[in-house]
Each structure stands twice: as structure tokens, then as C-alpha cells.
């Protein structure tokens, strides 16, 4: 049995604003019967541009109904600009929290709101483009990335709880794992595991071999890795480079740039003789 808060139970048993607003200014229609839940949201603006009335119809479990009820209460009286700032977390918070397996209900609320606001502004409802990752529930990489970013999700299970992706045949779990890694890499580089010295040396050698040496050799030059001290990469010039007047520029614009790109942004390249 789910541990629903009293607030969830209250909004499930006595939901606020059930129905459809007549001649609505905004309409949001998300989910489907196949997915197990769906939400139809309508609202009307007053002359000052505030949401005067909002109503919903929901097919789904208790938390889906409660989330929709909470959503309508949250947006009433707000301008579109204020309403569009509402996140799924705020819907969940309004209800005193949702079981983590049910967070997708609050996400559905937010999606319906987003769609309703777009329809109100007459803009094309921006459908999350991107590639379908979870075929069972038709969830795209963009949707997963957004959920991971906005809610700080860490595991496949989290993603399933918020977006449903991965909740069916489970074949997409590897792809979801990769998306999580990608997003978390983007938003929190500090959480990237620092390279060990050996990994760093290997990576520097590989980068020189693959990215740097071929272009130097085209001009009859070459470099050699001499030592690595902390972030200082010491290299010696060989061949044509040794006598090339533009060698210092090459060091910065090619060698250091490539090493920073492929290994670590805080590397400094120094030329040493030997």
C-alpha cells in the first residue's frame, strides 16, 4: 500500500476543480490510456491576464488525481509568466510530497501546464523533439535529460519514477544510464571522477599521438613528452619544430589546446630542452 500524505488523500477523495472550463484560453492534454494516466487541463484568463479559472479531468491513480487537483489550485490567480515557473517539485511539495514511484504524476501536471500555456499564447505546442529512448512509454532523450537535470536524478530507477521511461521491457536501461551520465557530466563537472596519475599520463600520450603528432609531422616536426608535474606537461621539440620560430605559438594553439580539450582544462604546456 502506498504511503500517501493526508493532503494527497484529501485531494484524491475531494478533488478541487474537476471538469472543463467553458471556452478555455489554454488547453493541455497529456498522457494516454495506454500509459495508465492522462490529464486534460483547461484554464481561462481574466482581463488582467491572470488565470481566473482552471479545471482538470484525470484518468489515473490517486496521486495523478491529487496532482491535477493541486496543479489547478496552484495556478489560479497567477499570470502566465508566474504559472510557467511552476515545477513538478512544487506540485509534489504542495501535496506534502509524493511516493517516489509516483513522481511522474507531478511531471504529468507540469507537462499539461506547459502545453496549456503554449496553446494560450498561440505558439506551437513545443513537442519535445528528440529520439525515442523508451519505446514502451514513448519517452525521448530530451525528456529524460530534462527530468534528470531539473530533479537531480541519479539512477535509472529515479528516471522511471519521474518519466516512466524504462518501466516496461527494460531494454532501454543502458541508454538511460548513458543519458544520466551525460547530463550529470554537463551540469556538475566537479562530480567527474578525477583522473589518476596513470590515467592522466596515458590520456596525454594518446592525445599527443592521435591529435597532435600527425599535424606536426606534416611539417617535418615532432614533440616528445618529457615529464608531467601536477598540471604542467613538459615536452621537448624535435625535428623541424626545434628550429621553428613559431614553435612557441604552436605550443599554445595546438599542443596545449588539444591537451586541454581531451585531457583536462587546467593543463599548462611547458617546453623543456632535452
Amino acid at each position, binding site marked *: 500500500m502506498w504511503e500517501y500524505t493526508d493532503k494527497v488523500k484529501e485531494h484524491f477523495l475531494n478533488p478541487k476543480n474537476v471538469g472543463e472550463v467553458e471556452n478555455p484560453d489554454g488547453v493541455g492534454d497529456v498522457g494516454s490510456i495506454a500509459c495508465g494516466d492522462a490529464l486534460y487541463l483547461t484554464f481561462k484568463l481574466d482581463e488582467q491576464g491572470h488565470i481566473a479559472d482552471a479545471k482538470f479531468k484525470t*484518468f489515473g491513480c490517486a496521486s495523478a488525481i491529487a496532482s491535477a487537483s493541486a496543479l489547478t489550485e496552484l495556478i489560479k490567480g497567477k499570470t502566465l509568466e508566474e504559472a510557467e515557473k511552476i515545477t513538478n517539485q512544487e506540485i509534489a511539495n504542495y501535496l506534502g510530497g509524493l511516493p517516489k514511484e509516483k513522481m511522474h504524476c507531478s511531471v504529468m501536471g507540469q507537462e499539461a501546464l506547459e502545453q496549456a500555456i503554449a496553446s494560450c499564447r498561440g505558439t506551437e505546442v513545443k513537442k519535445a523533439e528528440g529520439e525515442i529512448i523508451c519505446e514502451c512509454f514513448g519517452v525521448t532523450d530530451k525528456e529524460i535529460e530534462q527530468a534528470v537535470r531539473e530533479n537531480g536524478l541519479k539512477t535509472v530507477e529515479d528516471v522511471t519514477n519521474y518519466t516512466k521511461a524504462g518501466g516496461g521491457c527494460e531494454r532501454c536501461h543502458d541508454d538511460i544510464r548513458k543519458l544520466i551520465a551525460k547530463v550529470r557530466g554537463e551540469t556538475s563537472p566537479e562530480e567527474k571522477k578525477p583522473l589518476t596519475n596513470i590515467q592522466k599520463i596515458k590520456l596525454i600520450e594518446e592525445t599527443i599521438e592521435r591529435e597532435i603528432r600527425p599535424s606536426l609531422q606534416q611539417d617535418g616536426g615532432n614533440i616528445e613528452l618529457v615529464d608531467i608535474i601536477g598540471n604542467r606537461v613538459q615536452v621537448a621539440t624535435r625535428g623541424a619544430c626545434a628550429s621553428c620560430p613559431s614553435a612557441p605559438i604552436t605550443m599554445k594553439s595546438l599542443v596545449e589546446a588539444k591537451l586541454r580539450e581531451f585531457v583536462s582544462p587546467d593543463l599548462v604546456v611547458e617546453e623543456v630542452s632535452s
Partner: protein
Amino acid sequence: MKPIYVDNNATTQVAPKVLEAMLPYFREYYGNPSSMHTFGGQVGPKIREAREQVAELVGANADEILFTSCGSESDNTAIHSALTSNPEKRHIVISRVEHPAIRSLVASLSKQGYRISEIPVDSQGHLNLEKLQESLTQDTAIVSIMWANNETGVIFPIEKIAEMVHRHGIIFHTDAVQAVGKIPVNLRNTTIDMLSLSGHKLHAAKGIGALFIRKGTKFSPFLIGGHQERGRRAGTENVPGIIGLGAGCQLAKENMDQENSRVRKLRNHLEKELLYRIPNSVVNGDPLQRLPNTSNISFEFVEGESILLMLNEFNICASSGSACTSGSLEPSHVIRAMGVPFTMAHGSIRFSLSIYNTREEVDFIIEKLPPVIERLRLMSPFGNQGNKACTLQ
């Protein structure tokens, strides 16, 4: 207010007589049957008696009954034993609608290299016997097919299936956890090699089950340790549980007629009235080949968890094959295997009665459920389709 409990396929109330039989084995006769002293040793004959009571209910010999801790342990033991006894065989056959005790087990075995065949069912929940026949190979170590389905109550022709499997010299196991105690089960004239049953589904206590192993069947124990159960299952006997299972089986035998007449009538009354009063509701599974106590009904355009929680407000206890109730996102594998459309699958409710249910209770459900469905349909964006049909009828 006393709960109206119609979730007896999940678990049952311990019968007063069963509890009475068990209590002395907590209070007074708490000895270990393996002990040398009379105080412990005197429990041994009582266990033997319970073993006979269990054997009697299913038409077996007492020495063919192995006590376990639950239905799941019985299932695990049976599969494990068949695989260990036939190490060269790497193929397992089950149905698509088995209980998770079997499904999850073979899913984990498939990761260890076993090949699994899952036999489909049709829209009525009947097993495709041709597909079963085709699936049997020389590499098949065991076929495990449930006797009756826990969600729909649909009964498979197990004697016939056992016969078919046996002709190929393959071990046949049946998970009869839902069948034993509800319908007559007589192993004597069958070729079933192993059968699982569970105490708490037939008004005995939780934590006790049994596995029937036909004499002459190669057996390899699952729990290794002491010499209990003639070396076939280690672990000090759950004496009160065993005594209770014996008493429960005896009681089930006595109540079998009632289960199949009075309970069946109650179930039929409930089902008929709900279908009549609620438009767009459909019974899942063959209404005829079915356990007498079970009714699984889909209410179109509404979601099962919502129905259950609204029923809960009236203290009515049922269960659902809806995705939301289980924590998974997809509706029950049983309902899906039958090809029930999604509009129906999410709104399936299982009522499972027992001899303790009364006509008044059933009438109370008949009174309370239709407005719940109507209310949820009014709340649902698809609900118009559901309630509209109401005026058509």
C-alpha cells in the same frame, strides 16, 4: 467497522479451529521434534498426523508431502530439484501467466544460461496446448504450469497437461497454491510429479507451505543442513504452522462443498449485479472454467488504484491488476497475456471471496461500487465514453 474482506486470493483469515489447533504448540508443546526427550519427541506424531491431513486433501501419501515455509519456497524447491536432478537438460517450460514465484525464478535462471519457453494463453485465459506440445524437447528439464490463476481464477486442465508432459518423460510441476482448498484436487490418478500448496491461502497461517513430490521422483534438496523432513528440507520444523496447515487442510476438505456451492453463488451474484449496474464492465477470464471464489472485472476508462482506494473508504478490501497498485508501470502480466485492451487493463479489479463472506457484505459492495466508478468516470477525460454508454443501455 469490520472490514469487508474480498481479497482471499492474497491471503485468508486463519480459521478459528486452525488457530485453536496451533496455540498449544506455542504455549505447551514447544519442544523440538528432533530432541531425544519425550517432551520434544512427542511432537513428532502430531506432525505425522498433519502430514496425513495434507496428503488426504490432495489425494497423496503422507510420505509424499514435504513441509516448506511457503508456496514460493515450494516452487523454488521443485524447479531447483528438477534442474539439479537433470543437469544435462537446459530448457524450462512455463506459462505466460505464472505467479512471480515461478516467473522471476526462471527469469533469473535464463541469465544463467537456461532456455525458457513461455506458453501463451488466449483471450479467455486458456493455455495454448498445441504450443505447449510443440515446446517439449529432449532438452526440457521441467514443465511448470499453475493449476488455477491467482488473478483471474481460470483453471487449466492440469491432469491432461501432466499426461502430455509425462509422455515425453519430462518432470511436471504445478503451482496449485490457488487451487488447493478451493476445488477438488486428487493426485492419485494423475501423473503430476510435484505440486506446491500454501497454508495462508486456505485459512491456515502464513509461513507454512508444502510440496508434494511423487514417490519415485528424483529429488534434490533446496535447503541444506539438518536431517529434518527425511533430509529433504533442512531447518527446525515450524511446528505450530504445520499443525495449523494440517487442521486447515482438514477444514478445507469439510468446506469444499460449501466453497463450491454457497461461495460460488455469492461470487456469481456479485458479478452479475456489478456487470448489470456498471456499463462497460467485462469479466476477465473464462467465466466457466474458473475458481468458485474469484471474479476479475475490468471497468473501462477508470484506473484500478483509484477504485481500490475509494472502496477502501468503505473498508472494502479487494485488489487490482492495475499498474499503479504494484509500483510497476505496466498492468498485470496476466491481463496483458490475455490481450485485454489498455482501456480495460488498467481498471481491472479482483474480488476473491471465502466461506466467511456473507450475502450482506456482497450486497454492500454492489451498492457502493457503481457510484465509485461513475464518479471516477466523470473525473476522467475518457469518462464520457464510459458513462455515455450508461444511457444507451
